[in-house]
């Protein structure tokens, strides 16, 4: 029996203006910080990046840790990488 439907929280993390290796390390730190909520599917992280290599490395690393991610290009050298739990 479900008590109440929980809202999916969204957290936008702006990683624009940083170069390798910053975006990846910061993203991973954030993922680990909210690990429990992320696994439980209560939060989704949206990373905004403008460093092209991050569009490869962030999805690759979160996948290794068992999360799903989707990358969307939203503008000139701007991507949003959404990370969710399974």
């Amino acid at each position, binding site marked *: 029996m479900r008590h109440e439907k929980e809202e999916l929280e969204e957290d*936008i993390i702006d990683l624009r*203006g940083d170069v390798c*290796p*910053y975006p990846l390390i910061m993203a991973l730190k954030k993922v680990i910080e909210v690990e429990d909520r992320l696994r439980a599917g209560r939060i989704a992280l949206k990373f905004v990046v403008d460093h092209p290599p991050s569009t490869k490395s962030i999805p*690759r690393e979160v996948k290794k840790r068992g999360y799903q991610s989707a990358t969307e*290009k939203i503008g000139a050298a701007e991507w949003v990488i959404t990370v969710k739990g399974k």
Partner: protein
Amino acid sequence: MGDHRKGKMIGVLKADFENIFGKSWDVWLGGLLVGLFNVFEYICKKPWGITSATSRWSGWLLSGFGVDTPSWLYFQQMKTFQKIPFMYDGDAINIGVVLGAFIAACLSYEFAIRRASSSRVYVQAFIGGILMGYGARLCSGCNLGAFLCSIPSLSLSGWIFWLGLAVGAYMGIKFIIWQINRKSVIEGESSNHREYRERNEKRQIIIGLIGILAAVTITLFYSRFTEPEVTILFLIGLAFGVIIQRSRFCFVTCYKDVFVSRDATLFKAIIIAVLVSTVGFSLIMYNMVPDPSTGELPAHAKINNIGSPFGIPHLIGGILFGLGMTLAGGCASGTLYRMGEGYVSLWVAFLGTLVGYVFIAHNWQWLYPNVLEGTKVWLPQYLGWGWSVFLTILALISVYILITYWEAGVWVENN
């Protein structure tokens, strides 16, 4: 019928364009092309290098401010004042790389003036640049001249530099991890989220076309006013810019992947570039010096002074360079292509390298005769041609296999 055919053609051209600029290239393709173009460049004149040319810029700048750089030993050795500034072959390549990366970035809709997230980034990029500049000239080259072209030149120096580079990059990444973990929370919650940039896909393609126009103009300029080889090298520089922008061929990204993600894909692509260059360079050098026992060295080969005692100065230079590039966010070639992509912080890093060159040029008077002079080790002089080439290739393949083995460990640990 005619219209139908035309429509078909445009459709195919669009698909081709999308293939080249719509998504990033596989890194192994980048490695292969970098290796090939490196060989082309040596066939044309000399292997790919960046910092010999840019260090002259420091000499010109200082002399513009009234410093007597023409009398400095370093700038004399670099033949800094024999031509008009920016007319050297190396200048043509460097301008080509930045412009090529700019064009590729615009056509891929990846160009943006990227201001850094904080002033910390600029300070760090500047300091990193200084370390990079100093380290590079201590080793007679950057990640290209001291490594990517040095191992294929069958010189011992490339191997020492590679070790130093890895140590320096490791130190840099550990520092950055410490720096990030020191802060309790990652800032950038929704509240201070900046606006997204305006969408301007069409406009960016037009800017890219203007870039192509500029490239054509520079080509015509060089072919009119200087030797043909400078023009050819400019075109090769453009190609390098496009290749490394599309495949994101950068040594900082490489070591970040290795030390943070334990992923060696880019590391192995770099080995491919070195392997391809080794085969090409060996052929070129063999034609110049069939008998290495005479003591003659092939012209323009990157056989660098490793310094005494035991190549330690070279190792230190490699460490400085590796640390510097990680702090700056781009190796020498990575800095150039990211300048073309619009990273403001890497323009700052580039300025830092110019300052680094001034420091080492200032020390050169003492450094060169006491530490560096006469410490070149060219393997064919000791081992002959066959063994030198064979052992170099064997060692590269061994590193490739070892890193793959190490990389595989991550899956074993996780499962």
